[in-house]
């Protein structure tokens, strides 16, 4: 599928470092799928959907050139979209679901929560950010049937003081979910995954890898034997068991291994993949 131009119908600042871009586009997308967004002259980058429906939206964490350019768009501007690509979250019916999101990883969990509620699930959410100002979509999540989101901030400025992975561990034991869905920094997700494996709770995690082709050709997005663009971005606990890369390293644009930095043992909440050099 070739990139096609869609118009921006709105740009909203969500937090000091995040913005939402609403598109004049109704993709047939599943929660968790992604799209390659092209800003001519700048870059083409993978983005998840923060809204699916008649006006799809992406929510962007400012990281560098492409994300800055996205947040600087005005209504009426156009971007190229190639997608939806990859495999999204598998939607279960009538289950108790715990959704754990860190940083910008909360974004795809919103349409997921909506879809799960529509499938008769009970949805619990745990949301983390560096500070109170960077908490994303608390209101949108609160508006979706289910208990209000539980919150963690690294600096303790709101909710649980500390990483959302720790909060998630507590909620797992409290709510006894049938399934856990998670998106956010990989070290956070790895902690959640380990806890799920220990407790034999199935889980699905949305991964990020450097993406070039987005269609399973170039191997840039390899994670063990999986290609995140083709087999993911959502991989299940079964997929991920035994994949040495998970929570340990990703690959830079050249294919070299880039370990996940874990200076404080828990990983930062930022969504960045780190830089190769």
């Amino acid at each position, binding site marked *: *599928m*070739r*990139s*096609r*131009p869609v118009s921006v119908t709105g740009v909203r600042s969500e937090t000091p470092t995040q913005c939402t871009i609403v598109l004049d586009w109704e993709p047939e997308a599943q929660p968790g799928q992604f799209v*390659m967004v*092209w800003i*001519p*002259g700048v*870059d*083409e*980058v993978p983005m998840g959907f923060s809204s699916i429906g008649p006006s799809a939206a992406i929510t962007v964490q400012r990281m560098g050139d492409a994300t800055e350019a996205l947040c600087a768009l005005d209504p009426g501007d*156009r971007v*190229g979209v190639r997608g939806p690509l990859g495999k999204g979250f598998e939607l279960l019916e009538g289950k108790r679901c715990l959704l754990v999101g860190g940083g910008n990883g909360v974004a795809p969990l919103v349409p997921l929560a909506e879809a799960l509620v529509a499938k008769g699930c009970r949805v619990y959410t745990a949301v983390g950010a560096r500070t109170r100002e960077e908490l994303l979509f608390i209101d949108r999540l609160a508006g979706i049937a289910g208990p209000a989101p539980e919150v963690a901030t690294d600096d303790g400025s709101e909710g649980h003081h500390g990483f959302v992975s720790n909060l998630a561990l507590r909620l797992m034991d409290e709510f006894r979910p049938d399934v856990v869905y998670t998106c956010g920094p990989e070290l956070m997700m790895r902690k959640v995954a380990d806890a799920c494996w220990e407790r034999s709770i199935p889980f699905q995690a949305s991964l990020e890898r450097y993406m*070039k*082709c*987005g*269609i*399973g*050709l*170039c*191997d*840039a997005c*390899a994670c*063990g*034997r999986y*290609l995140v663009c*083709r087999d993911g971005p959502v991989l299940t606990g079964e997929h991920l068991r035994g994949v040495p890369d998970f929570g340990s390293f990703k*690959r*830079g*644009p*050249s*294919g*070299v*291994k880039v370990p996940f930095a874990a200076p404080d043992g828990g990983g930062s909440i930022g969504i960045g993949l780190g830089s*190769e050099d």
Partner: protein
Amino acid sequence: MDGPDISVDLCGVLMENPVMLASGVLGETGPSLLEALEGGAGAVVTKSIGPSPREGNPNPTVVTLGDSLLNAMGLPNPGMEAYAEELEWLRQGSEAPVLASVFGTSPDEYAEVAARLAPLVDGIELNLSCPHAKGLGAEMGGDPAMLEQVVRAVVDVTDLPVLAKLTPNTGDIGALASAAERGGASGLVAVNTLRGMAVDVEMAAPALANTYGGLSGDALRPVGVRCVHEIAGMTSLPVVGVGGISNHIHALEYIMAGATAVQVGTAIRTDGPRILGRIATDLRDWLADHDHSSLADVRGILVRGGHR
């Protein structure tokens, strides 16, 4: 397996079937190469590897055009040292044949990379033809004299079979084939991608960040088959056919035109590398349906002088 014999001896590389993974498609990591072998490839070729890490071109790096594709990856690769680890990992999981694709900016660099990877592989493929990375590949591979030098430099440092992968962006692919033969190549691979460009008219921009890219897939097949037929009729080296193969009939086009084996790249994007095994199986079934006992019955039947 039962049925007609489709095993291949490609200048000493013994393959269970003639369907190989083309260079640059997957092949940047050990696990992807293993997936291709488990998917049924007779052999795999690595991504083209250079002496040091290279990030390649900025995105967008691919544009799909129906069943064809333009790419301008720009030879991203982790460099020969990091890549050697990938191959070591692979070698623990599989004994199936692996060819290392190698590129460089000079004959010496080609030789350096080939020498570094040779102990880990069964053959060397020289990428003399990447049409969209400046100063690399095609610029050397389009000039017969330079191509001959590169081949000779690599042949001098390894006992493995050395296959020269040729560019179709030339008025005379025969001259390139002859140069490779003179340089001491054991085999030829034809073809790499055609240099192309697509414009996104609504965006008023080239569809690739690099403007130009390599055309692969369906659109390339008639050119690839013609190149294989041309060179199969003039050298005695085995030729590997590449370009636009997505089923066994396409593979047979190349094989009848003189190819000893074939490689598949772009077609992998739909179903992943298990398509390689499917093409091999369908090839065997086709031979059986047509009362052939071996691939040799049809190989090169369209080349002057008949069977090869």
